[in-house]
């Protein structure tokens, strides 16, 4: 029969059709030599020390958006989770749950995108799983990626913020809200469009560059759903010190301001997929910014605030108007409002 081009329940049955699907779609995209397709787990011995291990699932809609797709997102997101924990990412698993009727051509595009993202970051996808569910049981495609990395010496505790001190500078590697804005502008049901693309990207080389030149880096966390406000509130809780942020200093693209104005959103709460909050000692601020700005993913890096002994239980935003208020985490999602 002619190539149907669509996933059927038979593809998930574990027989020849499953094998052929895995070979022609996934192993081709991830590199035959990498994927240990014949065993339950991949055995790896790169000869390093402490390990970081993370997992995440991706259910983004739409699956294809300006600047990326769910495949790129799934790989970059997990690489970033490892990197901000102070680890060099090495290996990923890639598991999919596919809805019956999904286009195989689209699946191939997503797999190729995932494979390219991984290889551009120097990370290997070594194992995975494929399941097919009946039509209606999932929204097209769900992906789970798990990742292993090896902790850089001295960075084991970097996500606990234990080395953060009053006076330290808070930096970000670029503009906020790009990802959420790109998604909104690509939706067919809302009449907005723009040229902005998602900032979805693996940041391991950016982070590597920074911590090699600035070993005093005291904290790193990537800002995803909930925006940078969420990370800043988490940092406040972790380090037990006050945080002061200058609203004027936060880099925001025009497109993001436009969408924020139209729907009544606040860019501080909008989702990112390629942004990290860094804390470095004050004396290292300029050199840290210079390193970040030299990297393609850090060109618009900025100093946005600092750690302080004042109001240790609060994250405070100094507004453009000269006043200030406490920054809280978002409760629920931002919804388009009329008032």
């Amino acid at each position, binding site marked *: 029969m002619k190539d149907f081009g669509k996933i059927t329940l038979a593809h998930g049955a574990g027989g020849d059709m499953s094998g052929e699907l895995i070979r022609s779609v996934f192993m081709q995209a991830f590199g035959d030599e990498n994927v240990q397709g014949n065993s339950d787990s991949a055995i790896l011995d790169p000869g390093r020390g402490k390990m970081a291990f993370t997992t995440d699932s991706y259910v983004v809609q739409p699956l294809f958006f300006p600047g990326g797709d769910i495949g790129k997102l799934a790989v970059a997101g997990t690489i970033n989770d490892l990197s901000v924990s102070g680890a060099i990412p090495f290996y990923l698993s890639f598991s999919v749950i596919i809805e019956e009727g999904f286009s195989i051509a689209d699946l191939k595009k997503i797999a190729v995108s995932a494979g390219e993202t991984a290889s551009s970051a120097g990370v290997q996808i070594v194992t995975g799983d494929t399941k097919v569910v009946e039509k209606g049981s999932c929204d097209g495609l769900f992906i789970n990626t798990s990742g292993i990395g090896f902790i850089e010496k001295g960075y084991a505790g970097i996500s606990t913020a234990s080395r953060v001190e009053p006076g330290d500078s808070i930096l970000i590697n670029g503009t906020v809200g790009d990802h959420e804005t790109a998604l909104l502008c690509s939706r067919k*049901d*809302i*009449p907005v469009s723009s040229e902005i693309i998602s900032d979805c990207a693996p940041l391991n080389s950016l982070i590597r560059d920074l911590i090699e030149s600035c070993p005093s880096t005291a904290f790193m966390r990537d800002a995803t759903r909930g925006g940078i406000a969420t990370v800043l509130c988490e940092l406040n809780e972790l380090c037990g010190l006050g945080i002061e942020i200058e609203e004027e200093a936060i880099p925001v693209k025009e497109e993001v301001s436009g969408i924020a104005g*139209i*729907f*009544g959103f606040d860019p501080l709460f909008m989702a990112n997929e390629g942004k990290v909050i860094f804390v470095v000692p004050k004396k290292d601020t300029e050199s840290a910014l210079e390193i970040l700005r030299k990297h393609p993913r850090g060109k618009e890096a900025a100093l946005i605030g600092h750690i302080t002994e004042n109001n240790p239980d609060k994250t405070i935003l100094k*507004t*453009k*108007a*000269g*006043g*200030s*208020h*406490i920054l*809280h985490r978002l*409760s*629920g999602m*931002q*919804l*388009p*409002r*009329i*008032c």
Partner: protein
Amino acid sequence: MGRWLVKQESIKALRTAISKESVKPITLMEVCGSHTMAISRFGIRSMLPGTIRLISGPGCPVCVTGISYIDYAIAVSLLPQTIILSYGDLVRVPGTHSSLERERAGGADVRIVYSPMQALETALENPDKEIVFCGIGFETTTPGTAVLIKTASEKRIGNLSVLGAHKTMKPAMSALLESGTAIDGYICPGHVSVITGMGMYRELCREYPISCTVTGFEAQEILIGILSLVKSIQNGGNPVQNAYPGVVREEGNPKARSLVAEVFEPSDALWRGLGSIKGSGLAVRREYKKFDAYERFGLEVEEGVEPKGCRCGEVLRGICTPAECPLYGNRCVPGDPVGACMVSSEGSCAAWYNYS
């Protein structure tokens, strides 16, 4: 509009000017959710001298929507083959037992829209379903619903209706003054005024000893509005001022008003926390009744029950601050709101909580 962006020098100068001008205690009320939020967000209260008391009135259309409206919307959402469309904040407002958001989790087809015209598209794309649009909002938003109904009528759309709870500001502003709430001046809503024009404030100022200044939404625009009110209240002179003249015309938008008048007629309306205010609502006219969801579904819904201890009503009337409500901050927080003032991000309690 670039020069309208925040300028710290003019803000400093305005603050000083206000402090210099303001010699006697006055109370100013704003009646616009976006003003409530901007005032909290910019920390305007901390910029003013102790002589000026800023209180928040019933400016958030979500907050003043009655509980039984939510209960009715939920009842409609539970009917088979029905799609409910709503603006963002309404879906989290608690009714007596549930909210539209919870019902969605339970399987109801509840969707969030940005514009009422999306209801038209949804109706055309789903000819076998009933589409119900939750029409809430004040004068800025009502014209959009009027266009929706009129267009649906012209195109003979048979599966669309509007669950209306649109309200008008002037009756509420009068009612607050009638009830004796001590207000010396109203910070008037800039975008409502785009539609209404200045006329209704002139009427209000003829009937009551009050000043009104139509005000914009950036920090310095709000301070200019406050300065204008301070001068007018203390020095006399014209009690009605337009501090947003690039945007608000004297005559407002007559075309928008005539479209509203074609589709709607004044009715009494229930304002959550304030009770019924005569002539403050808008009901669908007889010619367009088939687009009125109350007529179309004719469901029986019990009288809504306010949650015990909730002081939203007094907060809306500016009688107590959010912090004075016993539920505020413990049982009632933005993530788990009890009353409407906390649900909407521009409700008085949410603004107070998020920007204190």
